[in-house]
C-alpha cells in the first residue's frame, strides 16, 4: 500500500519552531523552517540531523515550503540552508519573500548585536538564503519536478500567508500554515477549494476556543481610544512590528477618517515603516475593502498616521502612538510608557499576549508599582487595557476548513497536546475521518489508496458507452476490455487489439450445458415450445428459430435432441461463449425450471 509519512521536527503538539517533514510518493518535502521563541540554545532550531547525519540535505529533500513570514515559521531558514547546507528550491509567496529577510535581519541583530551570541547566521547568509527562494503566486501550480507540484491558497493570518497543497500523482497533502477563517480589517479569510487531499495538516492554536465576534472587540478598542483622546489623554499601543500593527493602523485610520478626528497618530519608525511599504505594494493580498478602494486611495498610505519622533512624546495634547516592542520589555514602547505612566488621563492598550516577566505582563496582572532599573519605582496611574486581536482560526474555523477541503485524514500541529486531543475527537466524530497528532520526532504513517489513471482507447470507450447509456451516469460502470501494462504505462484496450499487440492467437471458450426436459413430443415441436417460451420471457432480446430447428438467443445456441434411451425425455443443449456467461447461465436456470404446462 502506498503511504504518506509525516514527521514533525517542531510544532508537534507544541507552538513554535514549525518544521514538518512529509514524504509522499517518494518525494520528501519540508514544510516551514521555524525557530522557537522560548529557547536560546540548540533547541531553538529544529534538529536537522534527523533528516540526515552526514551528507547534504539537498539530496534528501525535494523542496522546502515556507507558509508565512513569522519567525516561528521561517526563523531557522538561513541556518538550515547556509549553515547546515541546503541548495534545493525554497518556495514562498511574494509578500513573504519580501518581508521575511527584514524580520530575519532584525532577529539576527537582536541575537548577535544585543545578546552577543556568536556562531549565528550572518547578514550575507540571509541574502544567500533568499537567493534560493522561488516566489509563487496564489493558485499557481508550480512543478517542482516532473511529479511533484505545489499550489498556494490564501490563508489570511498575515500578509502573504498561504496554505500549500503538495501533490504527487493522485496523492496530495495540504499544509495550512497559520490561517484565519474570519476576515479582519486588512486581510480576508482563508479559502480552499474542495481539493479532497489525502491528508490535511492543520494548525490548532485555538483548538478549544470558539471566539466571539470580532466586531465587539474592535468597537471596544475604538471606543476606548476615542474616549481617551477626547479627554485629552495620550494612548500608547505597544505592538509587534508586523501583522497586528497594520491591522490596528487601518482600524484607527479609517475610524479617524470616519469620525473626522484631528488628534495625531504616530507609529514608531524602523521595521514598521519598511513593512508598511510592502503592505502598500501587495494590495491584492488584502481584504475586499482595501482592494476595492485602492483605486481612489491606497489604504496603507495613511493620512492620519505619521512617523514618530522621540521628541513628540513630550508634546502636549492628545495623541495615539504605536510603538515596538509589543511586550513593553525594552525599546521605544517602554520609554514612552515611563513618560506617560504617571498621568491617569493616559492609557496603554496591550493588543497581544505578554510573556511572564515583562512589564506588559506585570501591568496586565494589575501591578500598579513597578520597579525599574536603577531602583526607581514607577507608579502606574494610566489606564491599562487588554485587547486580544489574534488571527488564528478558532475551533469552528478549523472545522469549517476541514469541511471545505474534505480531506481523508487530518493531522494537527501547532497547538497544545491537551487541546488537540479535544479537537481530534471532534473531527473524528463529526467527519468520520481519522485524525493524528504526532509529537515532535514521531512519525505518522498514513495509508493512501491512490487512484491509478489508465488510458483507454477512444474506440473502446465509445463502443462501451454506446451499449445502453445508463441513466445513472455518475455511478461506476462495468466495462469490458483488456488492461495492458507495458513500459510503465497502463492502457485499457479492446481484447482484439490486445491480442494483436501481444501477438497472441484468440481462443474461444464455450460453455455447454445439457438440460433434460420431460416432453413426449417430437424434437422440433419441443424446439418450437422452447422458442415460444423464451420469446415470451425475453422480450428485449432477439430470439430466433433457425430452420434446422435450433434456437438462438443473441449468440447463445439451444438445440433440442431426443434422449437416446428415453424418447420421452428431450435433451436441450445450451452453448454459449464466456462473454455471454451472464445470459447463458440465466437461460439454463430458466430452462431448468421447465416449460410451462400449457399448449
Amino acid at each position, binding site marked *: 500500500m502506498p503511504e504518506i509519512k509525516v514527521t514533525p521536527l517542531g510544532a508537534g503538539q507544541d507552538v513554535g519552531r514549525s518544521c514538518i517533514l512529509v514524504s509522499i510518493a517518494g518525494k520528501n518535502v519540508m514544510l516551514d523552517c521555524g525557530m522557537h521563541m522560548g529557547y536560546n540554545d540548540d533547541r531553538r532550531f529544529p534538529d536537522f540531523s534527523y533528516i540526515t547525519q552526514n551528507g547534504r540535505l539537498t539530496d534528501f529533500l525535494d523542496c522546502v515550503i515556507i507558509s508565512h513570514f513569522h519567525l516561528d515559521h521561517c526563523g531557522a531558514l538561513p541556518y538550515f540552508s547556509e549553515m547546515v547546507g541546503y541548495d534545493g528550491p525554497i518556495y514562498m509567496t511574494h509578500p513573504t519573500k519580501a518581508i521575511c529577510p527584514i524580520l530575519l535581519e532584525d532577529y539576527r541583530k537582536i541575537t548577535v548585536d544585543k545578546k552577543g551570541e556568536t556562531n549565528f547566521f550572518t547578514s550575507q547568509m540571509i541574502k544567500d538564503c533568499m537567493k534560493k527562494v522561488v516566489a509563487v503566486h496564489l493558485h499557481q501550480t508550480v512543478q517542482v519536478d516532473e511529479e511533484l507540484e505545489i499550489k498556494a491558497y490564501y490563508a489570511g493570518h498575515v500578509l502573504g500567508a498561504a496554505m500549500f497543497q503538495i501533490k504527487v500523482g493522485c496523492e496530495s497533502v495540504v499544509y495550512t500554515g497559520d490561517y484565519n477563517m474570519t476576515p479582519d480589517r486588512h486581510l480576508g479569510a482563508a479559502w480552499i477549494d474542495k481539493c479532497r487531499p489525502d491528508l490535511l495538516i492543520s494548525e490548532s492554536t485555538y483548538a478549544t476556543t470558539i471566539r466571539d465576534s470580532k466586531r465587539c472587540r474592535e468597537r471596544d478598542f475604538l471606543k476606548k481610544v476615542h474616549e481617551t483622546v477626547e479627554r485629552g489623554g495620550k494612548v500608547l499601543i505597544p505592538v509587534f512590528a508586523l501583522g497586528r500593527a497594520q491591522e490596528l493602523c487601518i482600524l484607527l485610520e479609517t475610524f479617524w477618517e470616519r469620525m*473626522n478626528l484631528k488628534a495625531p497618530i504616530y507609529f514608531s519608525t524602523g521595521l514598521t515603516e519598511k513593512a508598511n511599504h510592502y503592505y502598500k505594494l501587495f494590495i491584492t493580498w488584502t481584504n475586499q*475593502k482595501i482592494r476595492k478602494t485602492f483605486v481612489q486611495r491606497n489604504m496603507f498610505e495613511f493620512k492620519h498616521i505619521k512617523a514618530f519622533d522621540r521628541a513628540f512624546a513630550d508634546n502636549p495634547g492628545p495623541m495615539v502612538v504605536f510603538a515596538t516592542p509589543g511586550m513593553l520589555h525594552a525599546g521605544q514602547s517602554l520609554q514612552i510608557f515611563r513618560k506617560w505612566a504617571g498621568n491617569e488621563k493616559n492609557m496603554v492598550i496591550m493588543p497581544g499576549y505578554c510573556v511572564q516577566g515583562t512589564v506588559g505582563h506585570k501591568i496586565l496582572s494589575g501591578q500598579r508599582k513597578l520597579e525599574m532599573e536603577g531602583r526607581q519605582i514607577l507608579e502606574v496611574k494610566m489606564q491599562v487595557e487588554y485587547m486580544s486581536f489574534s488571527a488564528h482560526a478558532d475551533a469552528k474555523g478549523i472545522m469549517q476548513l476541514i469541511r471545505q477541503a474534505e480531506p481523508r485524514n487530518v493531522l494537527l500541529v501547532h497547538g497544545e497536546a491537551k487541546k488537540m486531543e479535544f479537537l481530534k475527537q471532534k473531527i473524528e466524530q463529526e467527519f468520520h475521518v481519522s485524525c493524528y497528532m504526532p509529537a515532535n520526532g514521531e512519525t505518522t504513517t498514513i495509508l493512501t489508496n491512490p487512484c491509478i489513471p489508465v488510458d483507454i482507447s477512444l474506440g473502446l470507450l465509445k463502443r462501451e458507452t454506446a451499449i445502453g447509456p445508463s441513466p445513472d*451516469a455518475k455511478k461506476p460502470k462495468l466495462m469490458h476490455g483488456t488492461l495492458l501494462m507495458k513500459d510503465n504505462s497502463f492502457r485499457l484496450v479492446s481484447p482484439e487489439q490486445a491480442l494483436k499487440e501481444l501477438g497472441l492467437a484468440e481462443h474461444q471458450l464455450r460453455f455447454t450445458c445439457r438440460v433434460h426436459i420431460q416432453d413426449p413430443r417430437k424434437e422440433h415441436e419441443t424446439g418450437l415450445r422452447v422458442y415460444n417460451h423464451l420469446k415470451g420471457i425475453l422480450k428485449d432480446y432477439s430470439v430466433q428459430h433457425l430452420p434446422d430447428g435450433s434456437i438462438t438467443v443473441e449468440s447463445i445456441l439451444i438445440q433440442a435432441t431426443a434422449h437416446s434411451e428415453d424418447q420421452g425425455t428431450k435433451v436441450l443443449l445450451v452453448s454459449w461463449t464466456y462473454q455471454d456467461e451472464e445470459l447463458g447461465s440465466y437461460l439454463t436456470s430458466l430452462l431448468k425450471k421447465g416449460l410451462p404446462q400449457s399448449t
Partner: protein
Amino acid sequence: QQQHEDLSTKKLRLTKPSKSAALHVDLCKATSPADALQYLLQFARKPVEVESVEGVVRILLEHYYKENDASVRLKIASLLGLLSKTAGFSPDCIMDDAINTLQNEKSHQVLAQLLDTLLVIGTKLPENPSVRMRLVEVACKHLTDSSHGVRNKCLQLIGCLGPVEKGVAKEAESQAAKDVQKIIGDHFNDQDPRVRTAAIKAMLQLHERGLKLQQAIYSQACKLLADDYEQVRSAAVQLIWVLSQLYPESIVPIPSSNEEIRLVDDAFGKICHMVSDGSWVVRVQAAKLLGSMQQVSSHFLEQTLDKKLMSDLRRKRTAHERAKELYSSGEFSSGRKWGDDAPKEEIDTGAVNLIESGACGAFVHGLEDEMYEVRIAAVEALCMLAQSSPSFAEKCLDFLVDMFNDEIEEVRLQSIHTMRKISNNITLREDQLDTVLAVLEDSSRDIREALHELLCCTNVSTKEGIHLALVELLKNLTKYPTDRESIWKCLKFLGSRHPTLVLPLVPELLSTHPFFDTPEPDMDDPAYIAVLVLIFNAAKSCPTMPALFSDHTFRHYAYLRDSLSHLVPPLRLPGRKLVSSAVSPSITPHEDPSQQFLHQSLERVYNFQHLDPQGIQELLEFTIRDLQRLGELQSELAGMADFTATYLQCQLLLIKALQEKLWNVAAPLYLKQNALASAAAKQILEETYKMEFMYSGVESRQVVIIHHMRLQAKALQLIVTARTTRGVEPLFGMCEKFLQEVDSFQRCFISELPHMQGSFVDKLLDLMPRLVTSKPSEVVKILQTTLRQSTFLHLPLPEQLHRATANIIEPTGESDNPLRFTSGLVVALDVDATLEHVQDPQGTVKVQVLYPDGQAQLIHPKPADFRNPGPGRHRLITQVYLSHTAWTEPCQIEVQLLLAYNSNKSKASTRIPKSTWNESLEALPPSENGIEGTIPFSKPVKVYIMPKPARR
C-alpha cells in the same frame, strides 16, 4: 415623430420584392458554407415583417436539409427561433417542421439550438396544451443525449412547458404523461454540473408556474447542497427554500438519531449551514433566503445568533452577554478589569458540537463575512426576521449595533435603516445607545441623517439615555452645523416619545437654579433651540413640566412657536394668554386654526365681486401678504399658501393691467402703459408655469384654472401688441395662434368647462363663431371687453400640496479662495443639494451655471446622482464641470438648480428624453430636447473661480 419614420420605412419595404425571395436567391448563390453564413448573418440584421415570416421559414428549412456544414445549420436554427419570436406571428404552422429537423441532426450544438427554438415556439403558444405535450415528449426523448448542452435545453424546455395540472396530463396522454417532476428529478444526479443546475432550475420553473412540488424531492435537494459546484449549490438552496415554504409543517427525521423535526426547521438549519459555504455567491443566496423563512420556530431562530463561545473548553460569555449583565445588575462598565472576560464553567467535551449544530451562529458568521455583499444580505435577513418576531428583534439588536462600525459605508447605512424598521419592537439599553450615538460623529451625511431618523423612532429606557442622546446630538451639531434641521427634528420626536424621562432632566437642561436667576441663554444658539425643542415636545404630554420653566423660557416658547412652528407644538401654558393657544382650542378643536385661516381669507377674496376696483386690489394685496406670512410660519401649509398666493398675485396683476384708466390715456403715454401691461402678462405666464410644475399634488381641477389664467395672460399680450404695432399683417398670425390655443384648451378640458360659468373662456367660447370670422382689430376689442367682464375663478385646493424646494448645501458660497484651474481645461465642482417634493427629479432637475459674462450652461445630472432618502425627499450629489477662457482676476459664478418643464408633454406623461450631459442653454432647440422652459427653484450660490491662462 419616430413613429412616422417607422411607418414610412415600412411602406418602402413593402414595395420591395419579398424578403424571402431575396434570401432564397442569396442562399442559392452561396458557394461555400462560409458564404452562406455571411448571407444569413446579414439577413439577421434586418427585421422581417409578419406576413413573410412563414415563407422565410420554409426557405430556411429547405436549405437546412441541404446544408452539410454544422455552423450554417446552427445559424439557421437560431434564426428560426428569432423568427418565431416575431410579434403577431403564430408559430404553430412551423412546429412540425421544426420537430422533424431534430430527427436526423447529429451535431449536439445544432440540436441544442433547435431545442431552444422549440422552447421559443412553445412559449409563444401558451394556449395549446397538446403542442406543449408534444414538445415535452420530444425533449424527454433527447434527455439521454451525451452532450450537456442538449440535456440542458431539454430540461429547460420541460421546466418551461411541462404540464402543470396533473389531471390534464392524464387525459391528454397515456404513456407519455410521465411525471415531469420525476423526469427532472432523475437529472439531479447527472454527471455534468451544468445539467444538474438546469434540472434544479427547471424544477424551480415548474414551481413558479404553479406546480406543487413533491415533498420527496427534499431529500434529493439536501444531497445537492454538498455538491462540488457552486451553481448547483446555489440553485439547491433555492429549491430547499421553496420546499420549506410548501411543506413547513411536515416532519422529517434527523439522520443518525431517532428524533424528528419540522421540515421548515430542518431546511432552515441547512440553509444556515450554507451561510458558511466556500463560495460567496452561495453565501449571499443563503443569507438572503434566511430572511424570508418566517415560520421557523423561535428556538431555531435564536440559535442563529449564538455561536456558543468557549475558551479552553470552558464556556465563555459573549461581550454582548457581559454588557447586558453589567447593565441589568446596575453596575457601570469597568471594562478595565484584566480578565473579566475569563471563561467560567467547564464544558462537557462530549456535548460540544462544532460543526453540525445547524443554525448555530449562522448570522454571526454572515455578519462577519469577508464579502460585504454577504454582510448586507445578512443584515437584510435579520431585518425581515426581526420584523416578524419581537423576541428575535431584541436579541439581534446587539449584532445590528455592532454593524454600525462596519468598514463599508453601505453596510453601515443598511444596518441603520434596518434598525429603524424594527425599532417598534425594541428598547435600546444604555450601552447600545452609546454605540449607536458614537456613529453620530461619522463624516458621512447619509449616515448621520439615517441615524437621526433612527433616533426619531427609538425607545430609550432611562433618563441617562435621553441625556446621553441629547449631549451627543449637540456635539454633532457643533461639529456639523449643517445638520441643524435634522437634529431638531430628531429631538422633537425624542421629546414627544419620552416625556417622563425628560421631566427630571428639565432643570439641568435649562440650567435653572432654585435660588439664583441664571443668565438668559442666547436665543439664536442652535444648541439652545435644540434643547428647547426637546423640552417643549416633551411638555406637550406632560402638563407638570411648564412649572419648571423660568420666565425667559416662556418668552422663548412664544418666539419659537412662531418661528419654528413645525418643531414646537402648541402648549397649554397655565396663566399665560397666548393668542394662539387661548383661542384655537376652544373654537375648533379638530381643525388646525391656520388651515381655517387660509380658507377664511380665500373665501373673503372670492366674494369681492361687489367691491370697487381699488378695494379689490387692496384686499388682494393684503391677502397675498397674509398668505405668504402663513406659509413661512406653517411649513405644512406652506405649499398650499404659496400656491394660492401666487394665484392671487396673478389675478392682481391682471386686474392692474386691465385698469380702465391706463387704456384710455392718450397715445404718447401708451409706451408706459404698454410696458406695465406686457410686463404683467409676462409675469403671469411665468407664475402659471410655476404653479403647474413646481407643486406636487396638483390635480386636474387646478390645472384647468392655471391654464385658464395663462390663456388670459396670452389674451392680454395680444391686446397689448395689437395696440402698439402698426399694420394688420402680424396681427393675423397672432390672432390665429390665440384662437388655436383657445381651441386646444377647449379640447383638453372639455369635462371641466361646466364648472367655469361666467369665466373668460366661457364667454370666449360663446363668441367663438364670431371671433373666427372677424378681423383682428375686432377680435382684440372683443377680447378686451371679455377680459374685463369675466369673473374671477375659484381655485379649489387639493388635499396635499407641496412646493418643490431645493437647497444647495455644497458649494456653500462662503469660500474666499477662488477655485483655480487652467483655462481650457475643466474643473469639477461638487454639488450637493437636497430636493423636496420634486416628482421625477431625474428627468426635471438641472443645474445651471451662470458665468459673469452672462453665458449660462445647463447641466443634466446623471440619474444615478439622485438618491432617495425618504418619501418626497431627494438628494442630488453630482459634479459639475466648469470651464472658461482665461480671466484676469477671480470672479464669481452662480450655481442654481432649475426645474425643467414641458407643458406639451406634461399631459402625455412621456419622459423627457435624456440628452448629453452638457449643452449650453442658447443652443437648446426646445422642441427636440423636450424642455420648454425652466423654473429656478433654489437660491443661487456663488462660487469663486479663477481660470488661469495656460502656461506655455
